[in-house]
């Protein structure tokens, strides 16, 4: 077709956009945007269910209150926050050395043929559902703690408040141990990735100068991996804080604050798991949702810090490689 001179130019010059392409782009953006909507929806619906309590008790009293008595409308979150922090930090203290030792052995010291089977085992460990760990902990770990570990610790270290009190089995120690097992794969897999990126040249240099294998690891591998290991720890901590079923089954379910690790306690997720379905009225439901909001806030903070640290570590690596 011949274009006439007076045809408006812009219309003819506009690039032809396939109608299907435009629709596809819109559909994809909508699906991507759905993630943001979900995130917003999560916060909104938590706040909505929790509102009755914040209006009545106030945030500060709620967070610092030490008593939890739903029947008389007394809601204090401190025992749960305490239990969550104690069990999770203890779990990290147990799991981190094990995960670090294991990954160091696999990456730097042990035979290569060991790597694959152990990696497979760790993956399996990660795939076992929480409730199965809980079952195991309740019928295997707890009796062992009650009959063997706690009497032993009580006899020899009983003068410390940490190891005082009757050996119940159920309590902070049991919860921390099962948590340690459950977060081990998270820490180990991230740490393993980090160790893989350690600069080989520096390590070989150290070895060539006469350093022992351990000294090479300490001087070349560990300093390089420190931010990554820190990030892995935070990710593990985030998992431990939110872990519900296994902890609920062995923590002892007692909303009290005790210095002894043998004592029964309670955590944020486990009180929600135990009481939410049978919550007595809006205020009880609201208080439990408020606990969820606290948990949500803590894990969100931890996870974003962990991501930022690891991202920065990666960028530094890329900078060095360039």
């Amino acid at each position, binding site marked *: 077709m011949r274009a006439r001179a007076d045809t408006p130019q812009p219309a003819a010059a506009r690039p032809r956009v396939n109608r299907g392409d435009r629709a596809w782009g819109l559909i994809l953006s909508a699906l991507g945007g759905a993630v943001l909507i979900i995130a917003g929806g999560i916060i909104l619906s938590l706040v909505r269910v929790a509102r009755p309590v914040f209006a009545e008790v106030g945030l500060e009293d709620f967070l610092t209150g030490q008593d939890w008595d739903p029947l008389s409308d007394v809601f204090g979150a401190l025992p749960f926050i305490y239990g969550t922090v104690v069990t999770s930090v203890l779990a990290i203290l147990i799991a981190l050395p094990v995960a670090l030792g294991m990954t160091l052995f696999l990456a730097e010291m042990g035979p290569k043929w060991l790597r694959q089977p152990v990696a497979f085992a760790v993956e399996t460990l990660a*795939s076992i*559902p929480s409730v199965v760990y809980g079952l195991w902990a309740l019928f*295997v770990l707890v009796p062992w703690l009650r009959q063997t570990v706690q009497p032993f610790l009580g006899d020899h270290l009983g003068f410390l408040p940490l190891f005082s009190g009757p050996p119940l089995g159920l309590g902070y120690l049991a919860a921390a141990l099962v948590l340690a097992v459950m977060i081990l794969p998270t820490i180990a897999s991230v740490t393993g990735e980090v160790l893989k990126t350690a600069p080989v040249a520096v390590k070989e240099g150290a070895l060539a100068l006469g350093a022992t294998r351990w000294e090479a690891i300490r001087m070349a591998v560990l300093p390089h991996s420190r931010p990554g290991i820190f990030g892995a720890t935070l990710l593990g901590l985030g998992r431990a804080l939110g872990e519900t079923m296994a902890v609920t089954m062995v923590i002892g379910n007692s909303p009290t604050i005790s210095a002894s690790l043998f004592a029964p306690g309670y955590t944020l997720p486990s009180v929600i798991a135990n009481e939410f379905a049978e919550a007595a009225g809006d205020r009880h439901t609201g208080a439990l949702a408020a606990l969820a909001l606290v948990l949500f806030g803590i894990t969100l903070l931890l*996870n974003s810090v962990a*991501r930022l640290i690891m991202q920065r570590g990666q960028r530094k690596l890329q900078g060095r490689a360039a």
Partner: protein
Amino acid sequence: MNGSLLRRKAVNHLLTGLCALMVLVALLPLVSVLWLVIKNGAAGLSWTFFTALPRPVGEEGGGVGNAVVGTLYIVAIACAFGLPLGIGAGVYLAESRNGLFARGIRFTAELLAGVPSIVIGIVAYGVVVVPMKRFSALAGGVALALLMIPTLARATEDLVRLVPGSLREASLALGVPQWKTSLRVVLRTAMGGIVTAVLLSIARVAGETAPLLFTALNNQYWNLRPDQPTSTLTVQIFNYAISPYEDWHAKAWSAALVLLLVVGVLNLLARQMTRTRLKGAR
């Protein structure tokens, strides 16, 4: 260097030994869990365990048939919501590269993946249970879908990005429109990997208990209606385990064995698919 050579060597051996010990320490719980679930659970497995309804305390026999069906049912509901959204968001992330919007979505998905599942349960309660005024399979399915979406989106993004750009360019050069290239060339190439990711995320949510406690709740009978409470294997294991009855404890172990088998088969299937795919690519 400090100390004599002998001391340094001793330290080296000591720490190597310690690290080797840690490998054993890490594997001990795995062996213990697997062995005890098999030992305590195998005895209770029988045909009726898979087909019968649970019996009240004191009555012999009974099974977890309704819980097996319920788990499959709720996972299916979760897939209906979660797969399109998760995979779609992943494709969006891969195709839109690094705009501010896409970066925000990526970061949000990563953070959502770390939100505890019990919190997601309360969200599903607020969104589905409160308006419907009852616990339901639908609420459980929505909770599990919310858990699937972020991880699936990130996995899909990585897989779509692995598709070589030359394939996409070849298709575009032949005059195939963008959307058809995305669907018929890029997504089809990435499909094997995406199926693996889907299997893994199904394995993960099938083992979830916490978000189902107050969404799907539980049910002593068969149920296939989306608006009714529904029994699941995981919640049933929990209820049996914390009960004071020996017989129920045995049932909990057997149900745990069934659950481990389901999750294990899904994981192995996913592994196998990855392996054959890598072989094919080579």
